[in-house]
């Protein structure tokens, strides 16, 4: 369907964009069409896409990517506090800081490979988290999380002790004479970034991020990254120094994480240390694997599924279930409520765990593999002789489409 041409990529991008931008309408029936969750879909989609550039293409499994997300959030909130509530400078600054952070951590961690690399990244992230939670409180506001506050009084005398955690400066905004009532809201050229505008902001970032990831994946650089995953030794004997490639991929994916962190701060200007904990790093790993490692769409899908479970399944309580099964006779209704109740509300983790197992047992390539098989079935039913080839081609749209599609043709 999407050939291996540049044109095919444009079509994919177009379809992706349309789907993302119409989510507020299409997701309404499953109760996911409200700004916060849509924002989360876009933000974690972005995070997972970036993570996939490293993990999906090079095979290097970072277990500390949440650190870059956290750093991005902190950087953004500091820009909001010190300079301006306009989001663009914050986003730029966050990407930059996350990039530098990734450069340093990547430079050290990439001296090792395999599980040793994973543990190095994990160690750096855990150190960041532990320090941010406690010792670095003057910079991070610890457990309470870094937040936007009211402005410090304008007429500060020479004896005034400025406490930047609890009062803000917003020097640039003040220079332009912005008047604030209470705590201000982030904005993009004075368009408020909460609610749906915030979602569209994140959605546009997601589309741009998707586009860049797609280009990287199809590029020479992307091919080199895939070659690293496939056989690093051969690459070395082929005249390629793999370290700069790995480092570049690491930094790029770190910058994606920084961007995701900034988007979080934009839509919800509060940066806490939990964002950097290993569970957060693990979450993006799970998202990517769940959707399909090395595929373009998979990570976005995986992110959406996990966030959907976290926000919607956890909110279903017995009252809702009783309504849902009210059409059943009362005895049966109770049974249903009890049984289903185990999997929703406080049991949403159980459902998630089962989902992980089922997906990985039956669909080794993640959700995207499932779609590829579905397409395959669909095609075969239509008695199309080229069906199997086309089906695998569908999956390969994401990975290495060129190789497989025409392979059997």
């Amino acid at each position, binding site marked *: 369907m999407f050939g291996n041409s540049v044109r095919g990529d*444009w079509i994919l*991008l*177009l379809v992706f*964009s*349309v789907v993302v*931008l*119409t989510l*507020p309408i299409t997701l309404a029936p499953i*109760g996911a*069409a*409200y*700004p*916060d*969750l849509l924002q*989360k879909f876009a933000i974690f989609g972005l995070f997972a896409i970036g993570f996939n550039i490293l993990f999906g293409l090079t095979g290097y499994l970072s277990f500390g990517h949440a650190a870059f997300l956290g750093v991005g959030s902190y950087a953004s909130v500091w820009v909001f506090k010190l300079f301006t509530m306009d989001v663009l400078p914050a986003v730029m600054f966050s990407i930059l800081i996350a990039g530098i952070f990734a450069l340093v951590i990547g430079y050290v961690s990439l001296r090792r490979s395999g599980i040793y690399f994973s543990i190095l990244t994990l160690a750096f992230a855990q150190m960041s988290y*532990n320090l941010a*939670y*406690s010792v670095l*409180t003057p910079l991070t506001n*610890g*457990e*309470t*999380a870094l*937040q936007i506050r*009211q402005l410090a009084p304008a007429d500060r005398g020479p004896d005034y002790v400025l406490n930047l955690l*609890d009062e803000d400066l917003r020097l640039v905004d003040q220079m332009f004479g912005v008047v604030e*009532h*209470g*705590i201000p*809201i982030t904005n993009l050229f004075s368009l408020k970034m*909460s*609610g*749906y*505008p915030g979602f*569209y902001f994140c*959605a*546009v970032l997601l*589309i*741009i991020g998707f*586009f*860049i990831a797609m*280009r990287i994946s199809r590029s020479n650089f992307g091919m080199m990254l895939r070659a690293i995953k496939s056989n690093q030794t051969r690459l070395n004997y082929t005249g390629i120094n793999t370290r700069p490639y790995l480092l570049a991929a690491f930094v790029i994916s770190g910058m994606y994480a920084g961007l995701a962190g900034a988007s*979080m701060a934009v839509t*919800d200007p*509060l940066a*806490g240390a*939990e*964002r950097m904990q290993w569970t957060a790093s693990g979450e993006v790993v799970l998202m990517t694997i769940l959707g399909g490692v090395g595929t373009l769409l998979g990570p976005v899908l995986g992110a959406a599924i996990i966030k959907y479970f*976290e*926000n*919607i399944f*956890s*909110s279903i*309580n017995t*009252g809702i279930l009783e309504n849902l099964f009210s059409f059943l006779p009362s005895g049966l209704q109770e049974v249903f409520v009890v049984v289903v109740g185990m999997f929703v*509300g*406080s049991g*949403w*983790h159980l459902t998630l765990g089962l989902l992980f197992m089922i997906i990985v047992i039956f669909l080794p390539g993640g959700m995207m593999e499932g779609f590829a098989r579905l397409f395959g079935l669909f095609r075969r039913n239509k008695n199309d002789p080229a069906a199997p080839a086309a089906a695998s081609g569908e999956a390969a749209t994401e990975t290495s489409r060129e190789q497989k599609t025409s392979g059997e043709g």
Partner: protein
Amino acid sequence: MTKKTSNIATRRTILKAGAGLGAFALTSGVAPLHFIREAHAADYCNKPTGKTVTLGFNVPQTGAYADEGADELRAYKLAVKHLNGEGDGGMLSTFKPSVLKGNGVLGKKVAFVTGDTQTKSPAARASAKRMIEKDNAVMITGGSSSGVAIAVQGLCQEAGVIFMAGLTHSNDTTGKDRRANGFRHFFNTHMSGAALGPVLEKAYGKVRNAYHLTADYTWGWSQQKSMKESTEAIGWKTTKTVKTPVGAGDFSQYITPVLNSGADVLILNHYGKDMVNSLTQAVQFGLRDKQVNGKNFEIIVPLFSRLMAQGAGDAIKGIFGSTNWNWSLKDEGSKAFVKSFGAEYGAPPSMAAHTCYVQTLLYANAAEMAGTFSPVGIVKSLEGFKFDGLGNGPTEYRAADHQCFKDVLVVRGNEKPTTKFDLLEVVEVTPRSQVEYDDKMLGGSLGPVNSKPC
């Protein structure tokens, strides 16, 4: 559709395409939705328009505080029942002055939505946002830690709904992080310290050396500061204060230095799992069998929760601490509440459950008094509201910081519990006057009430 296609076909560069899509989004996506929202714009956020009013119960359902969250949720459900006139009415009958009639609130039936905070600020905010944006909740309540409470309180302030804090003990919630839209019934670290001071003096004398182990985050520091101040006020010396990582699990490396420090009191500024572990281990190290400076070595846990204390088993016996409320209290309100809760769930309520139940009633009553659910109206009726019959004796919501002022319970681990719920005995009810402080002491300011439409 043709417009989009031509966009892509003709434009080659990413920037143009991105801008095109962005523009598409802003023109055709945002505008209509905003238009729709504005179309039936209310005068405040999530104004209930139907026959029900929705409250958002945001409690931990997974993670270390899941049981506490479950107990909170039970209390909320009970409160909703009572407000809607079902069940025995619980504290509705003892609550004075109250205008609640047991027919819902302002003629609307009370409905609720639930969510999982996971005891993480971002998750708690996401959950609260869902309640506000999707379920049109007009009030959010719950929480089992101060970080979460402060984060959600900030969110409610921004969104323009009322936040009735659940279990949050840090000074900051109504101190430097206080918000006009947020209210706290629970007590704080300052009150714990102030209440414990005199009791400790009576029990352990004026000459003591205290060693603090403190959870290394804001609540821990705040608790340590309060305890240090109040114990030093009765003449005790502070030997050392040591910060311990949150979730350390094994505290042995922090406990052994206590043995040689010359201290004769150990103060554990820990809560939840940390408290269970550090207390269990401190007792295992024989601290309580020790004699230092000719005195028995003592351990103090400033904030006790019966629910969590179960995890420490026998280790809590005889240990002093403070609590917001305990089910063994004999006033009419407490009796009514315990009876109603126990009959419903077969176990007495925890202090977290109590505070959540009370907060719901207080909110409902305030709405009834104001005749509206608008935050301005609620804030006006709650500020300076004096009430009784909700288990804590005469209580006041102070206008300056939205903190409840009431008597504080000093409790002690029960030496001979008759049931598994009977873990704490109340040794002293410290009067309100003794724990009260100036509202400027903790810094912060409420700011304006946010009652704008969302």
